[in-house]
Structure formats: structure tokens, C-alpha cells
């Protein structure tokens, strides 16, 4: 974080300094002034000037807080003067006494392993290390035979996760599949993985409304704008619901009638309204009739067209037209199909 080259010797000295600082601040009841801290930690003795010490101490403080150490700043003695002092509350510092049953440990261990291939692998591993240090016994116990893997391959994931965590406005470029990239400014609310893809929800400052973004479509670096804690996330924010609502149907399903070649259209047959159709009964001349429910005519047309000559849309007429439009598009004549949307 300091931007200085971390040679072996400087890392060694700095680790000693930080450890002594942590112990000094934990072992005091009264907040320590900077002068007292400088005297108490031997590795500060060599600093050339007050300014050099100040800079070093400020950076050390930030890095300890970054590790999650609850370092608090307060007035040392309100009666006499307003000099600031520093300490670490021992009860706040320590992991509370915590005990887990073996089956809970197995669940925790699997939860941590979920991130093995993701940007949270490090925090997941150190979290378990802390629990073991607190006396939680973890052999190789895990839930047997099951292995969820969550990945965060998108470069934008980590900067977005920090922004969501810190409630910090960000800006990024976003490319919709059918359009040029545009620059967005967003107050991020949440990150949600749904059907294997990461979605970002938040308040779009330029559009003045809540929006959902596919993280994989962010095509620039994610840059923070302004300070942390800059906005509140609505208490009733339901990220999964928001992502769902961009795709979920709102009206009751319609029924499509399809003619399906024998031994084909298996995925369609599985959704058939009648079991006899699913089983391929009642076929005439190698073709059978199958009825399926659908919401989105374009989505079903995609699927039917994907079977090429093996599935024919009979009804309704808008489905037939949509399928025919696709097939004509393939043969090169006529207008192409409507564009995909998120």
C-alpha cells in the first residue's frame, strides 16, 4: 500500500513496528498521544523528523484499520485539553468466543471452499484460520460429495465488490450487446449471481432510477467517485428480485402447438402439457403434436428455430411468423430477427 519497494529488511522492520504498535494500543486503558506512541514503539525511534514520524504513523493507522483492527481516536482527557489519543479496545479487537458443532464446521468449510476460484479465496482462507486460532477444530471435514464453485472472472468484480461494501459511487463503461459502450455513474447497491452470471444493482445517477447491469458487460476499469458511505441503500432493496424482474414473465403463459419429428425435440417434449406427448405417443408418419406453455414468443421461436427441420411451429400465428423470420434470416433473404435484450 505504501508504494515503496518491499525489500526483505523493510518488511521485517515494518512488521515488528506494526506488531509493537498493536500491542501498545491494546495494552493501554487511556488513549495514547502520538508522542507517547513514538516513545513506546522502538521502530519509530529512528524517524528523522516529526513530519516523517507523522506520515509513517498515519499510514500505519490506515493499514491496521484495513486489516479490520478497531483502532479508535478520542480526546485523551476532556477536562484539561483536547489532544487526541489512540487505543484499541480489547473487547472490540478480539473474535468473540465462538463454538461450532462438527456439522456446522463442515458447512463453514464448504462455504469457504466455494470461493477457491474467486477473488474472495484469500479472505475465506484467513477467516477459517482465525476460527482455528480461536479453538475451532477443523479436520478435513466437509459436506460429502458436493462441491459448489463460484467464480469471479470478471475484472470489474473486485472493484465493484469494494464499492458495494463501502457504499461508494463508481463510474464505468457499459456495453449492451446491440449498442456502443456508454459511461455510467452508479451508486452500487448489490452484486448478485444468478444462473451463473454476476449482476450489479444500484441507482443510476444519470438516469435517476434503479438499474441492473451484467458485470461481464462492463468494458472499462471501474473508478470510484467520491468518499465511502456516500449514500444509503434502500431498506427494501431486493437485488435478486430486481434481476428476476428484468427477465421474469408478468402475464399468464400462452400455449403453443408444435409438430415434432420422432426422437427429436427432447427438451420440448419434457415440457409438454400432456404426458402422452412427452412420451412421444400418438405419432403419425414419424411426427407428433406437442403443446407447450410459453411467455416470450421470441424466446420460444429461438428454441424452435434451433431445431431446424425437426420441429415446426403450428400455432399461434405470431410464433410461426417469428420462426419463419429466423429461418429466412439464415438463408440470407429478408429482414433479420429482433435483437436480443437483457
Amino acid at each position: 500500500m505504501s508504494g515503496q519497494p518491499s525489500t526483505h529488511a523493510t518488511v521485517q522492520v515494518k512488521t515488528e513496528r506494526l506488531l509493537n504498535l498493536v500491542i501498545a494500543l491494546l495494552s493501554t486503558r487511556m488513549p495514547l498521544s502520538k508522542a507517547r506512541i513514538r516513545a513506546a514503539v522502538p521502530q519509530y525511534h529512528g524517524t528523522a523528523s516529526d513530519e516523517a514520524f507523522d506520515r509513517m504513523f498515519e499510514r500505519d493507522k490506515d493499514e491496521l484499520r484495513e486489516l479490520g483492527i478497531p483502532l479508535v481516536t478520542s480526546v485523551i482527557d476532556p477536562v484539561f485539553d483536547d489532544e487526541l489519543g489512540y487505543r484499541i479496545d480489547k473487547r472490540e479487537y478480539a473474535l468473540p468466543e465462538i463454538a461450532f458443532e462438527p456439522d456446522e464446521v463442515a458447512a463453514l468449510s464448504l462455504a469457504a471452499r466455494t470461493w477457491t476460484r474467486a477473488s474472495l479465496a484469500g479472505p475465506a482462507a484467513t477467516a477459517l484460520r482465525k476460527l482455528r486460532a480461536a479453538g475451532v477444530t477443523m479436520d478435513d471435514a466437509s459436506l460429502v460429495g458436493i462441491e459448489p464453485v463460484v467464480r469471479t472472472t470478471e475484472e470489474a468484480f473486485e472493484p465493484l465488490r469494494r464499492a458495494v461494501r463501502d457504499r461508494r459511487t463508481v463510474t464505468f463503461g457499459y456495453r449492451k450487446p446491440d449498442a456502443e459502450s456508454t459511461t455510467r455513474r452508479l451508486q452500487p447497491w448489490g452484486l448478485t449471481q444468478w444462473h451463473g452470471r454476476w449482476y450489479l444493482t444500484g441507482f443510476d445517477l444519470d438516469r435517476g432510477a434503479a438499474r441492473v447491469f451484467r458485470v461481464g458487460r462492463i468494458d472499462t476499469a471501474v473508478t470510484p467517485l467520491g468518499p465511502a458511505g456516500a449514500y444509503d441503500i434502500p431498506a427494501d432493496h431486493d437485488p435478486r428480485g430486481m434481476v428476476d424482474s428484468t427477465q421474469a414473465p408478468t402475464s399468464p403463459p400462452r400455449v403453443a402447438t408444435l409438430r415434432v419429428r420422432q426422437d427429436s425435440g427432447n427438451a420440448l417434449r419434457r415440457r409438454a402439457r400432456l404426458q402422452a406427448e412427452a412420451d412421444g405417443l400418438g405419432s403419425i408418419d414419424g411426427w407428433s403434436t406437442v403443446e407447450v406453455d410459453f411467455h416470450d414468443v421470441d424466446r420460444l421461436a429461438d428454441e424452435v428455430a434451433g431445431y431446424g427441420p425437426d420441429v415446426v411451429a403450428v400455432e399461434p400465428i405470431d410464433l410461426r411468423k417469428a420462426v419463419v423470420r429466423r429461418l429466412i434470416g439464415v438463408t440470407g433473404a429478408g429482414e433479420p430477427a429482433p435483437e436480443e435484450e437483457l
Partner: protein
Amino acid sequence: MNGSRRSPSESATTRLSRLLDMVPWLLAHQGVPLDEAAAEFGVTTDQLVADLELLFVCGTPGGMPDDLIEADWEDGKVYVGNADYIARPLRLSVDEALALMVGLRALATTPGLVEHDAVGRALSKLEEATGALGAPSSRVQVSIDDGARASVLSRARRAVADHRRLHLAYLVPTRDEVTERDVDPMRVVFLDGHWYLEGWCHRAEDVRLFRLDRIQSLDVLDLDGTPPPQAQPRDVTEALFTPGEEDLEVVVETDRAGAWIVDYYPVDRVDDLGEGRRRVTLHVSDPALVRRLAWRMGGHVRVVSPVDLAASVASGAQEALSAYTAVRSGVDA
């Protein structure tokens, strides 16, 4: 040696956080052999010794001998003392709490998981221990319920645990074909939105992944299902996304409406042709996949090569269109 094999990239804060975990663990494991302690913290014994050397020059202000942490490892066994102020591990950071809690909540969405109760108890204990620090974890959510039937998932897992052979009717959508096969189950994996059963397939005589939502029926056979020794679990991300040597190289051209395919399929290269058009090279195990994609994309994805694949896309579309004329005349009659 004296710790000279320390990783050069390790930062002071990474090392500090290890030391702060190491002290409480060593206090609870007095006399632990050096190599065992090193293994616990994932470091070499040289590094562990360097860490212990660092500990015993640190302590409470004053610098008198009784201020300093005691550390002794002379007989190859580690003893630590006089470290009261850091005798408890540091509380979980926001990121650490988030990693565990988001992971547990994801597990809770697993269909048919018999351990739901343990997951819930672990989660509420963590929530209590982390308090406000755990709050941001609710802003990251992972759903690992892909609609796979709970009964299929739980029976597949049960078969893994009990080493029973399975008989599957499995839909191969690229070939639009239901296949029957016997499988010795190895594990049940969730990756990129789907649950898979990994197992030794007796039909293919190789390790295969089966998507649970494509398993039409699953029967547990009264046969031992221990996979043969050559059945090694594969790196699932590799297995799903690395093209095999024998795979066919396909070149397609997309316009803006077809651009999304590079998000969906593992592609080898993408060349920009201008005006939103791209040339995309990918490897596929089955050309039928590309044929289906081209048909459904109605001209937004066009096959350039191999030429015979492009020709079969065109002739298939023609044949499909002629069927429409036939149906129409049937209706009119």
C-alpha cells in the same frame, strides 16, 4: 538459511495478520512440532522460525525482558508465552465475514441439501459473532439453485457417499438425443450456474460431467459404483471450458445482435470487422451445437467455416421453411 526463503511479495500486513493468528493458535497448542505448526499456517519451517524470531523481539512498551513475547523452539517443539494482549485472534474483517456468510447463504439455496439445518445454525452463530461487520455481506448474493430437481441432486450425492452405480437417461441437447448409460458417481459440482454429476461413464469409458437438469431419470443400481483407479476428478473449469484436441474449429461472423455469443461460449479469438461486426473463432466438440445456434440466431450468427457446416446450416433452414409451406397447405385444406 534463517528464513531467507520467505516469499518476496509478502507484505508487512499479510505477515502481521498471520502472526496475530499464530500466537493464539500456538498458545493453545504448546509443544507442537515445528513442521506441524508450519503446515497449519501454510509456510515453510524456515518461515515459521523467522516469524518466531520476530515475535520474541516484540512486546509491550518498555522493552524490558519481561515485556517481550516468549518463544522457544529449540527442541523442535514450539512454546510461546507472555502474549496476553494478543492471546485471542483478531475478529473477522468485513471481507472475511462476507466470504463465509455469502458462501453459507448460497449453500442454503442448494436444492435437496440434507444439511440445511447445520448451514442455518453456522450462519446464525456467525451473524451473532460479527454483528454490524457482517451487514455488508447481505449485499452480495449467490443463488446456486438452477432448478435441478432436489430428488436428483440428493440421490446423486447419496450414491457418491454410498459408492453405488447409477443408471442415467441423459439428454444431450446438442444432439437432441436421450442416451442411456451406467455411471460410477464421483462428486456433485456446481459451476457457472449449473449442477453437474461427475462420474466414470461406462459407455464412454472416461470421466464425464452430466448436467443434473438434463438427467431425465436416475436409478440407483444394486451394484458397487466405486470408480476405477484411472477415474480422476477433473479440474471442472478445465473440463467445461477447455476445448479438446479433437474438437472442430469453427469460424462465425456476428453482427451486434449476435455479439452476445462471446459472453456465452468459450471463444479462441475475436476480430473486429467494423460496424459492430465480428469474426469469432471457437472450438466445439459437436458441430450440431453451431448449427442450432445459427438457426436460432436467424442470420445474426453466420458460419464462415468449415464450408460443409455452413452448407448444412443453409440446407437445414431451407428444409425447415418448406415444412412450413406444407403445414400451411394442410391447414388450408
